[in-house]
């Protein structure tokens, strides 16, 4: 059961420099890079035109972006440890507020939103997890809707630098990963540690819950992808194949496939059922890839019937869009 993917399109020079952060909604790709601007490109039109520029979002560059499952809220984090909240309204992204910076907050690193965009979870350099409650308020003066962020809860992971974080689609669990290779599963509601997963002994840079919240995929410098049972904490599979540090993972909508990307420019698609790599794509110049994401499809059955697509963003500033060779459903 081999899948073929083709490079459908490249948005050359989407950014002037390396793209470190990438996310997607059914209609758009949102990217952040070493330059101050965030860029929004359309996935609905075949030439993927640029739809919006969020200018000077982060003066030193952007390292993380995340969007809520309902695609209404976007959060971006810059290298200066500042975070911005955006809301989608009237077809564009509007600045809705900044994350409050507290003294001794620690350098803010990876972020994730819960499925409704009500809570923002963020890791820090020193191993803390902070959660903010997001609320929509009407700004009296401008009449614009703003989003305020109130610090909700904070806890220690004792794992050091929180390289990655993910909230399960059912919101029940929050996972963090660290340079030691440690991966922790916490209960989102009680913040209690549920599992300390068997470590890879090397930094784990990307973790993702499966769409059904039953599995957790994790990968990093060991070049192996670990699959864990989220309930029991047991290792279910190890996927081998990459030769360099893995930076990003994503589950397909049905949970049948995983896509992974690494610093040597290789992207691999894996069948979860057979635990094998079914396809490998390579960036022509071997430039490192920092983020890969399946493009979410719309809700209608015709949308669902379309070929799977995924996007990559990495060194060089181009966005790559790949699609399944055969239009399978």
């Amino acid at each position, binding site marked *: 059961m081999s899948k073929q993917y083709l490079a459908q399109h490249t948005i050359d020079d989407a950014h002037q420099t390396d793209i470190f952060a990438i996310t997607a909604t059914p209609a758009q790709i949102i990217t952040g890079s070493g330059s101050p601007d965030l860029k929004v490109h359309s996935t609905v039109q075949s030439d993927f035109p640029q739809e919006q520029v969020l200018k000077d979002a982060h003066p030193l560059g952007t390292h993380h972006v995340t969007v809520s499952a309902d695609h209404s809220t976007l959060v971006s984090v810059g290298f*200066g*440890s500042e975070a911005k909240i955006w809301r989608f309204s009237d077809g564009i992204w509007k600045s809705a507020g900044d994350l409050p910076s507290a003294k001794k907050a620690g350098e803010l690193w990876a972020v994730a939103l819960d499925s409704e965009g009500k809570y923002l979870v963020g890791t820090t350099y020193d191993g803390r997890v902070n959660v903010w409650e997001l609320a929509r308020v009407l700004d009296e003066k401008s009449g614009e809707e703003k989003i305020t962020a109130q610090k909700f809860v904070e806890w220690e992971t004792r794992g050091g630098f929180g390289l990655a974080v993910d909230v399960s689609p059912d919101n029940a669990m929050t996972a963090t990963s660290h340079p030691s290779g440690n991966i922790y599963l916490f209960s989102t509601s009680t913040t209690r540690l549920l599992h300390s997963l068997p470590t890879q002994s090397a930094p784990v840079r990307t973790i993702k819950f499966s769409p059904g919240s039953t599995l957790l995929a994790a990968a990093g410098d060991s070049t192996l992808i670990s699959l864990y049972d989220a309930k029991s904490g047991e290792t279910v599979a190890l996927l081998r194949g990459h030769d360099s540090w893995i930076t990003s993972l994503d589950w397909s909508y049905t949970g049948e496939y995983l896509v992974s990307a690494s*610093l040597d*420019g290789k992207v691999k698609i894996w069948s979860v059922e057979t635990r094998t790599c079914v396809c490998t794509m390579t960036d022509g110049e071997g430039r*490192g890839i920092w983020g890969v994401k399946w493009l979410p499809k719309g809700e209608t059955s015709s949308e669902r019937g379309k070929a799977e697509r995924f996007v990559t963003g990495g060194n060089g500033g181009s966005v790559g869009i790949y699609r399944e060779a055969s239009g399978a459903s």
Partner: protein
Amino acid sequence: MENDADSDMLDVPLPPGPSRHFNNSAYENSKVLTFINNTIDNINAALCVWPHGEVNVVLKRVKEIEHQRGTVNNASIGHGQTSKNAKMKVSYRQMKYSWPGNTPDEAWRFTCILAILHEINTAILSNITVTKRDIYYRQPELFRKQETVDRYIDDIAFTCGVTRKDLRVTASPKGLLCGLALTANDIFEPDNIPGARVQLVSSDLDDITAQHISHLRWILVVEKEASFKTLVEKRFDTQCSLGPGLIVTAKGYPDLNTHLFLRHILDLARTTSQPLPVFSLVDCDPDGLDIHRCYSTPPRPNIHEADASIPDLHWLGVDIIEWLGEKRVMDRCLTLTKRDRGRARGILGRMVEDDGEAVVGMGIGDGRSRMKRCLQTMLMLGVKAEIQAVDDEAVGGGLCGWLERGMVEARGY
């Protein structure tokens, strides 16, 4: 003791290039002698007053320097020329050190300053040069710390309106070089490197003429002594495919002597239109990049030090971005500490501020953009790489092969 009374603004023209210094020092020396004589005369006069006069010495200390943007830009100032248009606004405060003063501390400071003035006086009148270390070690129990000597020497130089060299005081040279043939007396054989010619970077630059350097095709500035030794052992200075060259290290952050030495060589090369590219080899970490910038950016704090910066210094590496796909090299990287991260952000912030934007493209042929990308990449991965990480014979010719390729490529852009 310390009067914050005055905070005048001075318009201070940048001093001329270093090569001019060594010929014009008589006037500057006399300014210093005048200051010392006046100070002593005032003290004598005060001692003669009954019941007691105010015995003190007054120095000026730099408070803040404001470069006037645009005019101090490297691109617009040629080296070896007087930058008449470039000015800096300097604010200073008067510091009055009295004796015996109100506290033992004040009396101590007065004594230190007088002792230093005495050394300077002797040096100028005897036409010799002393190092800051020499001065400290003459009376270490008095000075207590080297920094005490260093600080007052800077203040004295500023007060007299001269550079430190005009006080006949130099820093102890710490630089090493390989690839120049100077007098036989200078050559020494470091341990374990038989047959190699390594010399100390001396503070006496008049001996070096255009003829001494005419054989050089390149200069390589190396951060670490260990890497310097490796290259010397491999005879990189004579066996590089680009031709013979000069390898220099200041064993970390550059001292003034090494700065001036490099600037002198480059100025000499300019007089004979000899093309002489200069490269840097530093660790891929915030300190390494900062050291590169130390060499290439004009100095800020000490306005009375000559501008010996090397704006054309080409950053060869190590650039972690070059090695991202090589797991073998990446696995040798070290973890970026909290301090490193803060420093990396700080350097990135300063570069962005100086250039007015975060990153300009991918940095092909543009060292600054490459450096900003490198800082961001280090922060993304939380790692840094030492020069040793790429010194692997399996990596195509080891360090020397990699350096040569980088130097050839750099010439191309």
